[in-house]
């Protein structure tokens, strides 16, 4: 009798698991179709003429290699089921591929768009040693970085904002954080920004922002603060748990740019043209709605404007 009930229990558990898996699978499929459609939907066309050198070389070798984040929701995240990279940075990479090749093919050996995972630590090395052609990985084009790389863009303007628990009504602005605990990833530049913006806020650190979000859900911290784009990545999974403060609270400038080796001025201007084109023909908005917009981020009031600075 005991054994029979155990077997029945296992059978029920297995069925439940199978049901859960198939539900998951169909969700993944839907997501994949979304991305597929989005690539087909873009109005971006192949450029009439490619600048000689960097861009023409990419066209000749038949593949654009993009350094991207693989673990950042909404920016660049690898879908473990399909292997696709999803997020705004990935959409920018797809638009650039359309601009160079006229088509986007990410599957198989003939793919003309390949993603390589880059982190904050290795992205400089990857650009310089040619592991990747360009880095599109939420890389802020700070003035002091411009002499080291050529940066096209910004293709997205963001900055540091604050996320609190959904039921927290006390905190409506950065000033309200005085005396409150604010969790920031260890080693992040956001620590210093917060200390400068509101010295009365009590900064605590954890290994990464996922840990900070967990601590916020647990009630171990009052707020989490970093780039708004990253914060919205956590509201996707738990829309009822977290609330990102109004965008008017943003207190730093993070202009995300596309990095390539220093001295590639023609390539930089070509990519700036691509960004302008995407902003003009509605592709940029489509990419936004597919990623940040779907997570509840309001459309920015002012759109980014590529900075066509003089070469150093």
């Amino acid at each position, binding site marked *: 009798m005991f054994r029979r009930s155990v077997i029945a229990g296992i059978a029920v558990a297995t069925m439940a698991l199978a049901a859960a898996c198939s539900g998951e699978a169909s969700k993944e499929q839907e997501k994949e179709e979304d991305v597929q459609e989005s690539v087909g939907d873009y109005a971006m066309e192949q450029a009439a003429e490619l600048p000689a050198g960097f861009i023409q070389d990419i066209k000749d070798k038949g593949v654009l290699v993009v350094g991207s984040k693989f673990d950042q929701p909404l920016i660049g995240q690898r879908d473990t089921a399909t292997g696709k990279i999803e997020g705004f940075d990935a959409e920018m990479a797809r638009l650039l591929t359309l601009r160079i090749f006229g088509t986007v093919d990410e599957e198989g050996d003939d793919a003309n768009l390949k993603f390589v995972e880059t982190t*904050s*630590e290795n992205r400089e090395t990857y650009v310089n040693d040619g592991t990747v052609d360009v880095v599109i990985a939420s890389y802020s084009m*700070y003035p*002091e*970085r411009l002499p080291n790389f050529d940066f096209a863009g910004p293709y997205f303007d963001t900055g540091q904002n604050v996320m609190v628990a959904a039921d927290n009504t006390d905190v409506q602005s950065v000033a309200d954080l005085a005396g409150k605990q604010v*969790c920031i990833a*260890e*080693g*992040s*530049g956001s*620590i*210093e*920004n917060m200390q400068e913006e509101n010295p009365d806020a009590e900064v*605590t*650190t*954890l*290994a990464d922002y996922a*840990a900070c979000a*967990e*601590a916020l859900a*647990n*009630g*171990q911290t009052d707020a989490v603060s970093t780039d708004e784009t990253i914060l919205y990545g956590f509201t996707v999974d738990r829309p009822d748990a977290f609330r990102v403060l109004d965008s008017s609270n943003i207190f730093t400038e993070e202009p995300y740019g596309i990095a390539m080796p220093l001295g590639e001025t023609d390539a930089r201007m070509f990519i700036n043209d691509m960004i302008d084109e995407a902003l003009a023909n509605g592709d940029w908005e489509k990419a936004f709605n597919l990623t940040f917009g779907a997570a509840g981020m309001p459309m920015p009031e002012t759109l980014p404007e590529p900075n066509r600075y003089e070469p150093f």
Partner: protein
Amino acid sequence: MFDNFDLMVAALWDGLFTTIWVTLASFAIALVIGAILAVMHVSPAPPARWAANAYTQTFRNVPLLAVLFILFFGFPKIGISAENWVWALVGLGTYTGAFVGETLRSGINSIPLGQAEAARSIGLTFGQSLSSVILPQAFRSVIAPIGTLLTALVKNSALVLAIGVPELSAQAQRLINDNRDRFDLWAVIIGVLISYLIVNLIISYFVRLAEKRAVFVR
């Protein structure tokens, strides 16, 4: 290489200070837990031996980071909350305590059984024979391995950055990711390396000194 060198040294010194006090405080906890475990290991009561064994097997076979995460993220879920540094000390202390217990037990086992029997036969209780005959000898023979555990603890303490204690490695990460790129990557890495090396060399020196003092003729 030496950009903003004074700022870097100040930050690393802050971190080193945290590393040192976290290490010493958690080591004190580990010694207490280890001594209790060792007594339980050799206790005549079987349940005490079982409990000590269960504790040792658990903590020896679970990664330290997992212990820290369970403490920091798990306990608040059941209503027990504390400051980050408290969890760091508890995590490092309970984890290292298992190793200290095993080391002390091996020390106790190195004392010939005849001594314990002799102690009991002259009328000493179990506690008395441990405290005045067995443990003083056992401690002397385990000074070197306990010193090794202390140096391992210094290095393990780097993991508490994951639960928000800004020790040496955490400070190094902040310097490397500085907003204004003020610090040289290699200067920071070498600075951290030297800091850990100095701490552990000093520990080794004192352990060797203690070992020499404790030498006795059997």
